[in-house]
């Protein structure tokens, strides 16, 4: 069900990764590492994890052949349907893994940050299922924009703390969650939203999300008799991408692509294309690429896809870009919105804006691929959350 994932501290020649956190967190990060390694080897833990993934979250999710889209673009396109996962996005894979781990560690309180609310909702939902109290930090600006998700978290019994510092969006919410953890490190587990942050989070979240790639691989082989020619995912922090890639990274014939948000324009704070336009830095616990000015002050970002609206990226992806193992390109808000509508109309699936980035890149690359190529796209979530924004954008 999962790909084998080593817990790595450093990635690639430039040594991305590491553990750059306050001394107050060093001990608990070691505790997380130890617990994770123990839990992963513990059949009881893994059985419970698999059971909750299956019966609560609804795994396995299918891979679907997108017949009408394939016809239109002349390549066989397959969609990994993480949009069908409970909660509406792949985030649930990781919140289940992390919260079970927190329980395993004896932690009694969960904190998380959230941007638009997806990870916050997934954490709150999982906390409700497991009976763990959850507190979520969320930028005041995001709270204003995403009232529905705030109330959804509250319905799950979670407490939502508004963050008014800084830009009052995701980055600031992460900052605040880190501050909470520094303060309440004994009782608390920080459920991080993506495959980034300090060691061991990038590899640990990759492991939890490797279920996406692992299932997809088997499903592609079953459906087509072969591995896919090219795999596409969107990149926020990188958890759905690295989870998907995990099953293919050792197969050099499988091309790996990632789509990041080109946003509204090339102005520094109007996009969030970290891999293609960011520079190396050290922030949020890791050495990786960031959107920042020349002095290292982190920039505010923009994407129509709230889940991609983050100025950093997981260290392993930064390394995969360096090594050439994966190719990253940016996709604009406009392209995203078009593909959002196209997938709805041709395949009866409303993708998350995030996921529409991945598909948009796949459609862009399709004609460069061999006519016999098979394309696998990770539909990381469903787009119900994005309907209003879509109509606003379209002026409907």
């Amino acid at each position: 069900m999962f790909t084998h994932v080593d817990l790595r501290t450093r990635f690639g020649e430039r040594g991305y990764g590491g553990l750059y956190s306050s001394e107050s967190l060093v001990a608990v990060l070691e505790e997380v590492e130890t617990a994770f390694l123990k839990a992963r080897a513990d059949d009881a833990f893994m059985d419970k994890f698999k059971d909750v993934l299956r019966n609560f979250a609804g795994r396995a999710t299918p891979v679907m052949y997108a017949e009408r889209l394939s016809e239109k673009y002349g390549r066989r396109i397959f969609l990994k349907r993480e949009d069908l996962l409970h909660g509406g996005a792949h985030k649930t894979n990781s919140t289940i893994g992390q919260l079970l781990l927190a329980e395993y560690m004896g932690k009694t309180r969960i904190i998380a940050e959230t941007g638009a609310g997806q990870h916050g909702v997934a954490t709150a939902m999982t906390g409700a299922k497991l009976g763990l109290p959850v507190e979520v930090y969320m930028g005041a600006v995001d709270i204003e924009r995403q009232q529905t998700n705030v109330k959804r978290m509250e319905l799950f019994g979670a407490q939502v703390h508004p963050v008014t510092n800084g830009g009052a969006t995701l980055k600031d919410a992460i900052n605040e969650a880190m501050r909470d953890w520094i303060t309440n490190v004994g009782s608390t587990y920080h459920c991080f939203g993506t495959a980034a942050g300090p060691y061991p989070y990038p590899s640990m979240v990759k492991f939890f999300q490797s279920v996406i790639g692992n299932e997809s691989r088997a499903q592609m082989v079953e459906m087509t008799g072969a591995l896919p020619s090219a795999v596409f995912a969107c990149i926020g922090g990188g958890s759905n991408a690295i989870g998907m890639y995990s099953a293919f990274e050792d197969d050099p014939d499988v091309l790996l692509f990632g789509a990041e948000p080109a946003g509204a324009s090339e102005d520094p704070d109007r996009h969030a294309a970290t891999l293609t336009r960011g520079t190396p830095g050290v922030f949020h616990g890791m050495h990786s690429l960031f959107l920042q000015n020349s002095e290292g002050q982190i920039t505010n970002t923009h994407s129509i896809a709230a889940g991609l609206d983050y100025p950093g990226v997981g260290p392993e992806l930064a390394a995969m870009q360096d090594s050439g193992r994966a190719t990253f390109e940016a996709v604009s808000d406009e392209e995203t919105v078009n593909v959002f509508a196209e997938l709805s109309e041709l395949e009866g699936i409303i993708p998350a804006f995030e996921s529409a980035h991945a598909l948009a890149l796949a459609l862009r690359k399709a004609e460069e691929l061999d006519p016999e190529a098979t394309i696998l796209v990770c539909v990381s979530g469903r787009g119900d959350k994005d309907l209003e924004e879509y109509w606003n954008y379209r002026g409907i």
Partner: protein
Amino acid sequence: MNRFDAAFQQPGRKSFIPFFTLGDPTRAESMRLIRAAIDAGADAVELGFPFSDPVTDGPVNQRSMRRSLSSGMTYNGCVEMVREIRALYPDLPIGLLLYCNLLFKRGERAYAEFAEVGVDAVVCSDLPLEESGRHCELLDAHGIGCIQMIAPNTPTERAARLIDGSSAFTYVISRFGTTGPSARFEDDAVHRVARLRELSDKPLVVGFGISSKEQVADFWNAGADGVIVGSYFSLLVERNLDDLGVARKEIDEFVRAVRS
């Protein structure tokens, strides 16, 4: 010899070390505030470079850094301020606090620049021991003191290593949490300092949340060589933005009271 070493070796005298964000609320006012503290008798200063996302700081210091950045403060501006302070106070121990990314972006030339303007020690609150090898090497190479931080949950054995890995002094974080004034401390905080004291003779400086002269004295008495007070002063600045003379006066009085 590092100016901090000199300060901590004065027999019978404990150090009082005010902390300021460079450039808060503006470069000029920031200079006057820092000078007020020094002139009132501070034994050393700890100066913070403002950062967009100060994750180990509480709300008070976050706002302080934001004011500084909003006023147009830059990395170079900070370095120049340090140069100016050094020129005015040739013997004053000066420590810097930076978020790791600022140093990272500046690159290795940062260390030579620090040495050149007369910095005595540097601490990064998001650079733990394991990641600080090259950083300490470079500090060392430029004759600058290296500061490691000890947290309340740092195991004793690790604390020993952190003390070992520090030159200048070791920064003992007084309590769980980020920076920011605390009305009171658990007794535990003071006891912890006393226990750490037993591990080593090297200088220990306590900080985070200290905001009264009684608290300063408690930590001194527990064996700390120095005590840092920071966000309490930032708060004074914030509360008196329309008349910073008041802030300077309160800082002056606080330092004098502590030193008397």
